[in-house]
């Protein structure tokens, strides 16, 4: 016997859950094309400028980028554990895993902004203090892409932190979430993580094989 749905347009709760999940996947497909367009344009210039882009890429802070990759991958593991705990009915587990997820997300953004401050110090920020006497035009284009991509990614991550915060509040107050929300936010979080998994090698690693 199916449970009754909570919104009038659905017949059963299962249908409501499946609908919400499909909606999130459809939204993520939009996001794939959104970041995909930026990445495609970046790769176009990466091939076109070749050596100049490799030289520019070597100015990025690969240690911080690697640390951030580790932080974000760990946050995804926490998110997966939160979803699992929630489904297993553990309110405490879900809340603490979500707190860890959000904390790691904030840590990522912190490291990222520290990295920005170093780049600011080296006069590498286009439109703000880019030193075109020291660096080439291709370097400026590289850093324009770098800031566009990482800022958009950080914005998505902060939205994710907001959603996780809302979820912590909700589960903390009402107990484990029996709707699709936890799973959906989990999907979103993993997607933001995957975007970084594409950005990290493209920005930091490409050409750095010496």
């Amino acid at each position, binding site marked *: 016997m199916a449970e009754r749905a909570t919104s009038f347009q659905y*017949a059963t709760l299962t*249908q409501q859950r499946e609908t919400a999940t*499909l909606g999130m996947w*459809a*939204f993520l*497909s939009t996001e794939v*094309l959104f970041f995909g367009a930026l990445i495609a*344009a970046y790769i176009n210039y990466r091939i076109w400028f070749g050596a100049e882009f490799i030289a520019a890429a070597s100015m990025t802070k690969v240690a911080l980028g690697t640390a951030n990759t580790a932080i974000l991958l760990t946050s995804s593991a926490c998110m997966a554990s939160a979803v699992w705990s929630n489904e297993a009915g553990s309110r405490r587990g879900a809340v603490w895993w979500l707190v860890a997820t959000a904390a790691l997300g904030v840590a990522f953004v912190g490291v990222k902004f520290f990295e920005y401050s170093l780049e600011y110090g080296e006069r590498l920020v286009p439109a703000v203090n880019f030193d075109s006497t020291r660096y080439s*035009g291709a370097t400026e*284009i590289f850093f324009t892409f770098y800031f566009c991509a990482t800022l958009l990614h950080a914005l998505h991550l902060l939205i994710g932190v907001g959603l996780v915060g809302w979820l912590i509040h909700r589960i903390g107050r009402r107990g484990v979430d029996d709707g699709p929300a936890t799973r959906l936010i989990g999907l979103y979080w993993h997607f933001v993580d995957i975007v970084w998994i594409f950005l990290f090698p493209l920005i930091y690693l490409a050409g750095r094989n010496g």
Partner: protein
Amino acid sequence: MLAPPNLSYLNAKTGIRSWLLTTDHKRIALLYFASITFFFAVGGIAATLIRFELITPGPTLGSPDFYNRLFTMHGIIMVWFFLIPSIPATMGNFMIPMMIGARDLAFPRLNLASWYFYIAGGIVTITALLLGGVDTGWTFYEPYSTFYATGYVILTVFGIFLSGFSSILTGLNFIVTTHKLRAPGMTWYRLPVFVWSTYATSLILVLATPVLAMTLIMLLVERVFHVGIFSPQLGGDPLLFQHMFWFYSHPAVYIMILPSMGVISELVPVFARKPLFGYEFVVWCSIAIAGIGFLVWGHHMFVAGQALYASLAFSFLSYLVAVPSAVKVFNWIATMHEGWIHFDAPMLYAFGFIGLFTVGGLTGLFLAALAVDVHVTDTYFVVAHFHYIMVGGAVMGYFGGLHYWWPKITGRLYPDYWARFAAILAFFGFNLTFFPQFILGYLGMPRRYQSYPPEFQVWHVLSSAGASILAVGYALPLFYFSWSILKGKRAPANPWHATGLEWTTPSPPPPANFEETPVVIRPPYQYDREGNPLMQADNG
């Protein structure tokens, strides 16, 4: 007539809040109808001024700069604020849940949000146009749009960016609704073709719009911060902008035409009282058009300097996308063969669509041919071609659908005589407006020019004369539709003898669409020997 009206979505709640905060897909469709009609009027006024300006070879109304701003405004408003949302956001919003036997779309609040995004984008763009407009053309080509254009590029682009959210949310809602909210017995092959068409359209909305969004962000970054992305003087590649822009904007043409094809596929079987010929072919052709449509964008760039081999591939793919379009045309004609054809107003629009779309499609093949394209690139031949598709095709389908579903939406009938007159007038006005432009273009008249050699004047005058007839054809429905709301006869549940689920419920429909969830027992467009409709679900 004196009996109290039944409870319907129109009178279930009253007051301005009940409209602005509604989550009922039918009411949101009406919100879209009102706002889209406004933008259609604004774009139409711009078109009228353009045709007025071009009656004489020299400047008539204002400076060349004024003219540049005029055609840019016409393009932007018509593309993003009328054609893209036109059929999906209005008739799609209203009819998709009704056709599949659902009580609403999957995400009613997102649906309302999409309208607010549309309105926000519209307000920002209209503000930019009132402040002085832009002169880039609707295509915002680089580096002109970032380093040379003097108008309100930033504001306009931001308005278009906002309206993109509306597209994405609508498309997402339709995809999920079609997958998950179909009534019992409503299998994929029992879906009305209109649902399949809007489904294919939604795939494009969801997958192409984000690319435009990113392209516009990059354009804004370059214009606001003066850093190089596309501009050659800063090391960028202006062709990359064109690739990215057309990666959205060519599929956008299919966003405009596919829903119209869906409307025509509804109209032809109903007014020929026959099943649609080759249903499976028609629906898979919609999907094929949506898919192949993503791979043809380079035919906008044959003379822009892209590689010859790329041009060859894009030319071939552009021919390929014509195949499913042609299959549809043949299927509509085959449906009418030995049918019992009723010449009601919606069917007249369908006839108009089929003829004009065929002309537009065939001239598209001229443009897809590499050598011919060199001769007619950026001439009035191109202008005439895409107006045959977007106005002759998409807008004819919009009016056809509007006349078909009007009794369902409002619960009122309109004067059929006037409606047929408007349809015929629009057809003749359209041809007189745009056929001379094929000739003009072939003779060498470039697009987007205010002044032209005097020997072209006769064609321009013919075109402007046609535009005045077309304008009357488009304005007439405003009058008789208004009359029908006030004084029209009450519509029965199924005035056209159609077979879809939307016709099994009263006109106008009750707030939850159906008294009980219908159980679908047969495919659409089935008729018995006397031409009586066999409904998809037995009522009650």
